[in-house]
């Protein structure tokens, strides 16, 4: 019975104190609002920062998702003269460096070597400048996850025989006025004629990584491209079995390449393996750090706000000394008085928190107007709302404690004699 009645009684007491506190705050409207400004600013800034970061993160995550979090990029890394390379020659990656890689790198699912050059694409009288033409291996399909909407993909034979076939994307097809299914038609890339075997869907546009250009693409078999441009300075895109083994895959790849490129022990790599998963992790770390720093800064402003709350509560206690004395005389326990003032301070802070939250929303909608800031997906997450309110309530409790104790300890006789 007591287990049911005690919490109920406490709840009723808190409710009652809350009503009293609301009356008190309402009676001193101007003062209450001025007092809470510190809290308002603190909460507004923390929610705005968290919301902006959340929006940024959403954008970045979608972009990385589009890019593929299991992807790795291998590029030559020029490090200037070294013991092994005293003249500082630039060693590009060679196609042969990657022969047999899948056998030695168990965590790499697939990879493609590729080169790129900008060419003019022509269909009869229509032409398009600056089309990136990429020479890719048949495994490109698995690596990039790009669907061929009409026609077929590259086959091993296309690659090995360096056949003059190509894939174009839908945008290039439309630009050059091909029919919906252009398979079998011919296209001039640079000065060489290719047969179109299929159409690839357009690349997902990304807001963070601008690939630049006009969004038109053409692809030719790697063998065909290498045949025309030598096998120097190629790039490699690989995918690992899952984002979780990205680090292992990276290590295997580096080990394999060092062996192939005969880099002695102790020499630095002359290539770079970039893992998307790693970027993602770094970004997460950075955003966590920013959140932490913002929270600390906001903590300071809340501290200042809290001192304001404490000050006004002290004023309130001394103004209401007689009232406290009377309440005690008619039977208010010290704990009841303590609770009343604590609840009042907390309500004041929560009110500040609410106004601050609205302010944060306001700041956010202003931030969203900034073009190219990638904040369009920003929103205040539920946990930030909870954080803001618990911060506010915490400030109320901590800084309201001293005035409340002071009120609770008042001697009723002295208090009733107070002028």
């Amino acid at each position, binding site marked *: 019975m007591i287990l049911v009645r005690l919490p109920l009684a406490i709840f009723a007491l808190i409710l009652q104190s809350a009503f009293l506190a609301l009356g008190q705050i309402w009676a001193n409207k101007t003062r209450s609002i001025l007092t809470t400004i510190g809290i308002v600013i603190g909460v507004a800034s923390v929610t705005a920062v968290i919301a902006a970061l959340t929006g940024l993160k959403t954008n970045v995550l979608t972009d990385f998702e589009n890019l593929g979090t299991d992807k790795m990029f291998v590029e030559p890394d020029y490090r200037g003269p070294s013991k092994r390379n005293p003249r500082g020659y630039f060693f590009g990656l060679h196609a042969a460096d990657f022969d047999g890689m899948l056998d030695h790198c168990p965590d790499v699912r697939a990879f493609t070597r590729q080169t790129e050059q900008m060419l003019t694409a022509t269909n009869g009288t229509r032409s398009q400048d600056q089309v990136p033409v990429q020479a890719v291996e048949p495994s490109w399909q698995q690596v990039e996850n790009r669907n061929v909407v009409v026609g077929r993909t590259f086959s091993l034979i296309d690659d090995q025989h360096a056949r003059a076939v190509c894939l174009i994307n839908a945008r290039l097809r439309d630009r050059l006025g091909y029919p919906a299914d252009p398979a079998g038609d011919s296209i001039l890339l640079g000065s060489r004629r290719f047969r179109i075997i299929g159409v690839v869907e357009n690349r997902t546009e990304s807001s963070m990584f601008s690939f630049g250009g006009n969004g038109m693409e053409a692809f030719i078999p790697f063998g065909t491209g290498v045949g025309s441009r030598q096998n120097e300075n190629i790039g490699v895109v690989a995918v690992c079995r899952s984002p979780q083994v990205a680090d292992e895959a990276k290590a295997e790849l580096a080990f394999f390449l060092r062996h192939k490129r005969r880099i002695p022990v102790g020499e630095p790599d002359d290539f770079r393996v970039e893992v998307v998963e790693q970027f993602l992790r770094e970004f997460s770390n950075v955003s966590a750090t920013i959140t932490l720093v913002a929270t600390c800064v906001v903590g300071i402003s809340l501290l200042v706000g809290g001192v304001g709350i404490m000050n006004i509560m002290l004023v309130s206690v001394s103004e209401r000394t007689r009232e406290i004395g009377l309440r005690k005389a*008619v039977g208010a326990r010290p704990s009841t008085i303590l609770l009343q003032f604590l609840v009042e301070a907390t309500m004041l802070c929560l009110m500040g928190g609410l106004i601050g939250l609205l302010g944060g929303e306001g700041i956010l909608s202003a931030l969203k107007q900034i073009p190219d800031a990638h904040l369009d997906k920003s929103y205040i997450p539920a946990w930030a709302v909870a954080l803001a309110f618990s911060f506010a309530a915490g400030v109320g409790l901590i800084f309201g404690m001293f005035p409340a104790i002071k009120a609770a300890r008042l001697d009723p006789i002295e208090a009733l004699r107070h002028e």
Partner: protein
Amino acid sequence: MVIRLENITRHYKVGPERIRALDGVSLEIDRNEYVAVMGTSGSGKSTLMNILGCLDRPTSGAYALDGKVTTKLSGGALAKVRNERIGFVFQSFELLPRLSALANTELPLLYSPAAWWGRRARARHAMKTVGLGDRMRHRPNQLSGGQKQRVAIARALINKPSILLADEPTGNLDSATTDEILGLFDELHRSGQTIILVTHEPDVARHARRIIRMKDGRVQSDLPVDADVVGQQVPAPLAAVEGAA
């Protein structure tokens, strides 16, 4: 026996000095008594009042209210005693200015375990008892002095206290209103309420049935009203002076 005081002392320390505000007071007050405590300022009557009201604890001695010794109770338990057994009426009314007369009357119920749904009705009933049935929604500043003191009395009575403690209840009132309030006290006394009144005015004390005179922290005299000076016929010249004042 409502009140039993046994050899109560109350000492204050002011710097190096020890002030004996109460110096061995023993008293018994029965149910339905109407007692006036008189004395000059510094006689210890306020201290006695505070101890009777459980606002203060004696330095030594025992105080039993309704047969229960309160001397060793904690602050919270004393608050409960004040809430349930004692009704205070102060000289300066002590009404909360922002609350209506009804809410002021209801105040002690806020701190008692009484269920909230019975509060308003009890407060209304108490207001009617003191004859303010038509002033419930008024704020204290819309009431006259006498009406304010009636609200305070209603507040004091709402928990059906064992004793009604009135500290100079007419000190801030004019003579007509004083009679009105004292009339109310007489009525309450007739209906069985135990009343303890602290005053220095003989005219007020005369309404009581028993007069306790304090001096230097001790009981100087404790007599029925008829035996005390204030109960005697007022000398004519003094009456004239008082009437002129």
